């Protein structure tokens, strides 16, 4: 993982200011979605070898959840956007 994360609100900051929550590609289903949809949401992960989207929170900064799009092999970061602005 990158040593720095470019927070859209705070600028380039050391990775240690952030904590990672996990896969940002899963979307919380509607309450009446199928059991399988809910199981998939909570438990199943694409876990790609390559490009992935992950939630990182700028805990020691603006406390926003960010979506970090990056590569799981090269650790290159492609983009960092605010997690609330889908």
């Amino acid at each position: 993982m990158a040593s720095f994360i470019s927070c859209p609100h705070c600028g380039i900051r050391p990775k240690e200011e952030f904590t990672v929550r996990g896969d940002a590609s899963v979307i919380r289903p509607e309450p009446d979605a199928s059991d399988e949809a809910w199981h998939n949401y909570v438990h199943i992960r694409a876990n790609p070898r390559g490009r992935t989207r992950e939630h990182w929170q700028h805990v020691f900064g603006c406390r926003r959840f960010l979506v970090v799009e990056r590569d799981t092999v090269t650790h290159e970061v492609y983009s960092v956007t605010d997690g609330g602005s889908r």
Partner: protein
Amino acid sequence: MTFAPACRYANVRENHGTVKGMRYSAFALVKQALQGNRGWTPAWREPQPKPHYDVIIVGGGGHGLATAYYLAKEFGVKNIAVLEKGYLGSGNVGRNTTIVRSNYLLPGNEPFYEFSLKLWEGLGQDLNYNVMLSQRGIINLFHSDADRDAHIRRGNAMWMEGVPAELLDRETLKKMMPFLNFDHARFPIMGGLLQKRAGTARHDAVAWGFARGADRHGVDLIQHCEVTGIRRENGVVVGVETSRGFIGCGKLGLAAAGNTSVVGQMAGLKLPIESHVLQAFVTEGLKPCIDHVITYGAGHFYISQSDKGGLVFGAEIDGYSSYAQRGGLATVEHVMEEGVTMIPGLSRVRVLRSWAGVMDMSMDGSPIISRTDIDNLYLNCGWCYGGFKATPASGFCFAHLIAKGETHPAARFLRLDRFERGYPIDEHGAGPQPNLH
């Protein structure tokens, strides 16, 4: 002292087939030495892949090799291949901290890991390969009343399975390990839970021992053979596409922890797995100074000393999903901080090498040995931090499942569908977030 509950799994063992190849012994060593060590033969063959096998195991790491070994030796399966994309033992079996233990809390885990430890205890003889099991004992330190209670609960859970455990108080620990931080610790050491039968084993030797054993039972170990696709017809697997061409199979077992999702995807499996990076470290060789495996309760640090003298240690995963076998400097620093906090005298010890493995982190922190929705496709994955100690039992139980089509009793809770059904085995109580386990 009896170990009745775990022994019940061991009596299924039979010996099938004939063993080929050289037998190791002190006598052989002397004989060969006198002949200038020129007479040693290869530990395993380098066969060309056959067009078809009854069983193919994907992954020539510890678990895959152990599976093939037990399939051939215990379950009489004749026509087996192990496909490995790199060299044998090039995955996590060769990059762990070599700890072997069975000090688990939950009934889904403890019998399995105790079965594994039982297998470890006879493994050298069974394989005719010294895996250098060293039952020096593991001590989990605790630092608060709540922590102590949790360890008592765990120790009693171990005893329920017939696994001896001891609670050590601070004074006893002081005598055993005066080098621990008793005087200036931010989180004072209150005591520890000891499992005497736990310890370490020589990790590479485990891979090689199983490889040689499997080979001696006729298993084809095919290195540098990367699986690139899984061919299915009429809902069942018929074989695998590999970098060395198509190879047919009757049954397919996946034991590719670290890359489980990548391989699983070839068969359309959707899995509760994230790949994470875990770093490990070794110091320069030192004269014996740490006699046990010790874990830090106020952090995640664990340390032991290898038979070569290096202190082997690690702590938690870096926390982000990764397939790169390398970690970050911040985690390195954090591991060292925990190290000197637990053992202040480590401060001047120099760290020689760091490395990293890719962990299959499952959603409850426990492994999966399971059938899948595809009839002849079997899955062995999700080992998180704990794969090495599980190697023999993982192989045994996975072989049992593949050969007999039914779950081995020691692994009966490790099913893939436990998440859907609401039976997680959550040793840390952290919930479905892999990087918290």
